[in-house]
């Protein structure tokens, strides 16, 4: 029920936005996220944007995971050689 899907804002008219999701365009309300801008990815729940997705935070998560992967793979190679 608390499902919310990331979608990109294509166009804004007053408190409404056109968003693209899987090739389909839909209208959503920006009444709960008035600061949203065209190009932002937002979480959409029950026809409303409820939060803007923070790209820097997302990139940081991915970077930390890439590091974890690289570090553990390197450690395994060490073990393999030793």
């Amino acid at each position, binding site marked *: 029920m608390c499902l919310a899907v990331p979608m990109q804002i294509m166009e804004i008219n007053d408190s409404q936005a056109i968003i693209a999701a899987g090739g389909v365009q839909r209208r959503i309300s920006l009444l709960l996220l008035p600061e949203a801008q065209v190009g932002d990815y937002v979480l959409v729940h029950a026809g409303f944007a*409820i939060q803007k997705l923070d790209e820097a*935070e997302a990139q*940081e998560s991915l970077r930390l995971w890439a590091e974890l992967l690289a570090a553990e793979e390197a450690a395994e190679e060490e073990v393999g050689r030793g």
Partner: protein
Amino acid sequence: MKYLEEFRDGAVAQRLAGRIQAYAGRPVNLMEVCGTHTVAIFRHGIRQLLPPNVRMLSGPGCPVCVTANADLDKAIALALMPGVILTTFGDMLKVPGSYSSLQRARAEGGDVRIVYSALDALDIARRHPQQQVVFFAVGFETTAPTIAASVAEARRQSLGNYSIVSVHKLVPPALRALLDSGELRIDGFLLPGHVSAIIGSAPYQFIARDYGIPCVITGFEPLDVLQGIALLLAQITAGEARVEIQYRRAVPPQGNPAALAQMHAIFQPGDAEWRGLGLIPASGLRLRDDYAAFDAERRLAIETPPPKEQRGCRCGEVLRGVIAPPECALFGKTCTPENPLGPCMVSFEGTCAAWYNYRGA
């Protein structure tokens, strides 16, 4: 960045699972509060990755499931009232109340319409000025601001035929009630990502501070869930109890202030009846007096017979994490998603439905 595939990488998932499997501490019970997490955990086969000393319990985080029969009975009575169009979210249609369901009310001639957004219900009210359009408003903090926005819009547009039945519920008071019951030991909470996108991290601090239980606000992709569990185990191992945010891309510590302001402008906390948990003080949202005109219960005289529970249904215990669905004698026998006897089997995100749909997976 599409915010989806990036968080499903199999190689990283294996590494995160490896961290979880390396947990060598005492046996722990971790509760995923949110029904969307329950489904994600089953869909991605995460239970099978857990070592025997890490057990996941499902919590009360399915709004459809925790809606009390007395409230469902009101919606059903409204649907059968002449001149009323009852609108609600799709999940509610098949949920059995004491004597009937909205689906049955519709078959009996009630005008029940499923909407995707509360704003769709406003459109219906505009198109049918001679009828009363009532929105049966279920949902946690994720959803309540959207309903609040619809009420504010109705006032702005002077729509006199739109009203709501608010059975909204708040997550933090339910967690406190669960902990105070002392019914089961919970060693960590995987907290709901989208409720938290609205309320932020502050409202959960009491869990870490007063109960000493680690909390991680977690996203819904497989890497999110695995990392959330790994972070909980790291806190447990270190003997810490903090509210951490794993789902940082969607949950700023302060949540969404505009949505919270909208919610608080229209609603105030009130006592609420939860299926399985009973009456919990200040765990619901009712319309402020200033918005009483939009309260369907004040506008329309709703009469319902005394509520009763489905015999043998153990939904309440499932919602408290006390039993797993297969421990209920009805599960998978007389109670299935096609013919649900209790709400936990109706909602796709109900714990019983998740167990049933992914059994053998």
